[in-house]
């Protein structure tokens, strides 16, 4: 029997159609995975179901009742529970008290809790394996246990359906395994679940059915096998199918013998979540190296470590000198320039002003010459020189981001997901510019990409990173035969 029936829900945030006519249903006891790359609208879809965000149009029927547009607490009372990606438990209360919270009735007339609530809370804790830490405070728990705590809170009141938003984010591989087992045990107990994740591999063993999303729309639905072999899904995740990559871009420049960057990171933590572990990576002068992996695998964290934005254990050598303890500004002046995934342009300044700010350290003549070089590389930017950055298209913004980074005259360019959300033709433009750059100036590039096609085309060597660990590394032309098909 269907307990959740979603029909053509849509949500627009300003100029962005975040969710576009999404329909799917969940039967009793069924586990449905909602997957898609970053920004595909899967988390928003979950928020729409829970009533955290109101849908613009469409209908959501939960156990026969229309709940679209209802208040979150009213939906929760009907038997829906959600585990959010970021949890903030009450730090001054014990684990048991945190779980009890979830069981309290929604009334202001209560000064004491009943014995029954205590018992139910202990049961919920037992179900997720927290029974030994009931009297501890959340601060003293490892990250995975905090996730369990959120799960216990959601399960405590026996919801008819459970929504899980990225339940594996930030977990180490062993914890991910334990957590998967937990979800399997809930499935075996007949719990209906909707699970959002960007990692298809992590969920395919857990779910009965997958709904794949991209750019707010549903692109595929079916069993895990059907969805992972779906042409469209593979394209969304990796660009064009790997087999059809034509090796048209011959590397013409020579790779030097000088080791520019030598990374040896033991670990990086965000709070108690481990984002990176045992990363060994090096880049020779003049080389084009890619770090590939799905979103959330740790690519951006790696870049942030290189630039000194996050603390890490281990060492990073730049041109023979350790970068440990150096400030981001000094590292940047030392010759590393970043093109962030989020671009971070000065949106209310003109294209020219953005470029000039990038070259603030150069003297006037030098700066003008460098601006000219960038206009040559991206003629489109010359046409738009006087326009505000926010009026540019996505592709033009990406060009400007790269251009601004080049204004620093870096020895190493870090590119974080330059193809994200761009049309194939624009990607082609950027490809050409990168080729030209390397041939003319022998620039060294370290690229973080989810689009494998793009990465394989440009790179000398590739590192594959999965949930914070290196899984493979080698020459780019060996990538598709050795890794290619396994990655989804």
């Amino acid at each position, binding site marked *: 029997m269907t307990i959740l029936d979603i029909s053509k829900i849509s949500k627009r945030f300003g100029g962005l159609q975040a969710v576009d006519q999404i329909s799917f249903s969940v039967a009793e006891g069924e586990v449905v995975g909602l997957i898609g790359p970053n920004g595909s609208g899967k988390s928003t879809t979950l928020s729409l179901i829970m009533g955290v965000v109101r849908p613009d149009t469409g209908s959501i029927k939960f156990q026969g009742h229309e709940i679209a547009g209802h208040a979150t607490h009213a939906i*929760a*009372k009907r038997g829906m*529970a959600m585990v959010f990606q970021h949890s903030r438990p009450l730090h001054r209360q014990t684990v048991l*008290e945190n779980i009890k919270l979830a069981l309290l009735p929604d009334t202001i007339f*209560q000064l004491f809790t009943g014995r029954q609530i205590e018992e139910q809370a202990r049961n919920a804790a037992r179900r997720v394996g927290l029974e030994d830490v009931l009297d501890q405070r959340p601060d003293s728990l490892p990250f995975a246990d905090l996730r369990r705590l959120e799960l216990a809170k959601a399960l405590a009141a026996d919801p008819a359906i459970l929504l899980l938003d990225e339940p594996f984010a930030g977990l180490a591989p062993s914890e991910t395994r334990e957590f998967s087992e937990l979800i399997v045990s809930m499935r075996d107990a007949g719990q209906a679940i909707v699970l959002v994740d960007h990692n298809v591999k992590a969920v395919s063993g857990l779910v009965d059915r997958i709904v794949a999303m991209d750019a707010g729309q549903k692109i595929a639905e079916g069993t895990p096998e059907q969805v992972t072999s779906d042409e469209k899904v593979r394209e969304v995740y990796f660009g064009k199918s790997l087999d059809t990559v034509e090796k048209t871009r011959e590397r013409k420049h020579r790779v030097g013998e000088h080791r520019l960057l030598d990374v040896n990171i033991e670990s990086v933590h965000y709070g108690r979540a481990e984002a990176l572990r045992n990363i060994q990576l090096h880049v020779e002068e003049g080389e084009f190296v890619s770090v590939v992996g799905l979103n959330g695998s740790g690519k951006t964290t790696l870049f942030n470590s290189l630039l000194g934005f996050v603390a890490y254990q281990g060492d990073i050598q730049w041109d023979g000198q350790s970068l440990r303890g150096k400030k981001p500004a000094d590292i940047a002046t030392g010759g590393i320039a970043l093109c962030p995934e989020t671009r971070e342009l000065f949106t209310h300044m003109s294209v020219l002003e953005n470029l000039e700010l990038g070259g603030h350290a150069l003297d006037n003549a030098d700066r003008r010459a460098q601006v000219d070089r960038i206009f040559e590389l991206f003629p489109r930017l010359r046409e738009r020189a006087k326009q505000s950055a926010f009026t540019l298209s996505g592709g033009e913004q990406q060009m400007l981001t790269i251009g601004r980074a080049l204004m620093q005259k870096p020895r190493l360019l870090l590119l974080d997901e330059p193809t994200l959300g761009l049309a194939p033709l624009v990607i082609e433009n950027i490809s050409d510019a990168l080729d030209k750059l390397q041939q003319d100036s022998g620039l060294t590039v370290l690229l973080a990409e989810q689009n494998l096609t793009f990465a394989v085309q440009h790179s000398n060597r590739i590192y594959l990173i999965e949930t914070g660990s290196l899984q493979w590394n080698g020459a780019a032309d060996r990538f598709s035969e050795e890794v290619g098909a396994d990655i989804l």
Partner: protein
Amino acid sequence: MNRTWFDWRTGVVVLAFAATACLPWFVSGYWLGVLTISSYVAVYAMAWDLLFGYGGEVNFGPTFLIGLGAYGAGMSNTFLGWPVWVSIPVGTLAAVIGGLALVGPALRLKGPYFGLVTLVAVLLLSQVINMFAGYTGGEIGLALRDILTISSTGNFYYAFGLMTITALVLRILVRSPLGLILEASGQDTTATEALGFSVTKFKILAFVISAFFSGLAGAMTVFYFGTASPGTVVAVAVTIQIIIATIIGGRRSIIGSILGAVFLIVAGEFLRPVGQLSSTLVAVLALLVLVFAPNGFISVFGARRERKA
């Protein structure tokens, strides 16, 4: 909840209250006066922290509630001739009704806008007091017919008693299921809604309770002074005093609010000889506490292990 009700810290607090209650036998009327004012400010601070520390809402208008209590009580005494013990409930009721009228629209707004609305409410109240100077006494203040008592010991016990009762009631409240839901709402509204709680309802309740104690303390304050004037119960300076007291004492701590208020008033008295400089020095002291013990005095006693959110 199942936390022990009587650990050593509770023992220390009870002893401190008992010792303070014996002070009239040992200290001068002047210091009793200082402690009387401290007690009223402590009630303001505790009531404010219920919203800020537990409910997660920054109310820039505690003096709107205090002022309504003060002027409601003062005017019913002066113009209607009602006795003190009728006027005080009238003032308290005025604060609760005013609080309810304010919180409805204010809670529809999120984040800093809630604070702005409450701030505007204070400005509005002081405008009204000035406009109807014939009834309110305007800037100069309203002289009351009666006072609580002329005895400094009596006044001290009224104030200290109110503070003790407020502390007890709020302690029971914040440790009850109700307090748990309120604290969760303050920390993460969305997640708390997702657990099935209509957060607005709990925040309105917190606001009403805060209004009740603020109004009651405001009403009793004017019967202690014998006058109601904007400078003592409505001015923004009073709000700032309440906020500083709560923060340096320790957010989300009832005893912290009391410590902060007593410290602020007593330090102000000690610094009186330096004149104008005194408020600057108090502000610098508060800043130092914020930098070196961001969770306030109370964190120094290890009573609250808490990470900065």
